[in-house]
């Protein structure tokens, strides 16, 4: 009998059932497509390669459709995931949503009180993405 009591981070990150691995690959593909298109549109608008107007709006909507496919792939991954992986993901998601709501409402209030001059909501999304990543990392360590 092999006694594997402690696993490294990469052992855990790459572990999972065959279904998990397949769903992760699918999710990554959609996520990269969406993020790639999103970044391309931003760059094109910023450097004036793409004028504002119907074409830019259409491309943005198409990018959002790719995002919806990424969302569906993530949902499928969660539904079919190994139960411990699902628990880790849900704990990380709860933390990310909590930070998003708390951070967003606090920042909005700080603008009203005058403590902050203005606030870009994009930072909330960045904070949520980071907190989700950190949450998954902590969860992987906790259950290893």
């Amino acid at each position, binding site marked *: *009998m*092999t006694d*594997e009591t402690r*696993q490294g981070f990469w052992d855990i990150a790459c572990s*999972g*059932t065959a279904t998990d691995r397949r769903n992760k690959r699918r999710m990554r593909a959609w996520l990269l497509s969406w993020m790639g298109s999103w970044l391309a549109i931003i760059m094109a608008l910023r450097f004036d390669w793409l004028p504002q107007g119907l074409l830019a709006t259409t491309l943005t909507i198409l990018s959002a459709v790719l995002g919806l496919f990424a969302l569906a792939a993530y949902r499928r991954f969660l539904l079919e995931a*190994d139960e411990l*992986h699902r628990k880790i993901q849900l704990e990380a998601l709860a933390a990310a949503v909590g930070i998003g709501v708390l951070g967003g409402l606090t920042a909005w209030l700080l603008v009203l009180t005058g403590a902050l001059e203005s606030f870009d909501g994009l930072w909330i999304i960045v904070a949520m993405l980071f907190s989700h990543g950190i949450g998954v990392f902590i969860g992987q360590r906790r*259950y*290893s």
Partner: protein
Amino acid sequence: MKNRLKTLRAERDWTQARLAQELDVSRQTVNALETGKYDPSLPLAFRIARLFERPIEEIFLENAAP
């Protein structure tokens, strides 16, 4: 919750990977179960009981149980 998973696995001379495959879970899940860091869902507990052909209460023991 304590469990006898590691002992039962040892009796069959299985690796964690093999047990994970039999239960259709990740090796991390088997590891977390054996080290007591994670309690299984009821369906998984039933699968484990069926695999080792023992009643659930013989495999999983409540911490407060006498």
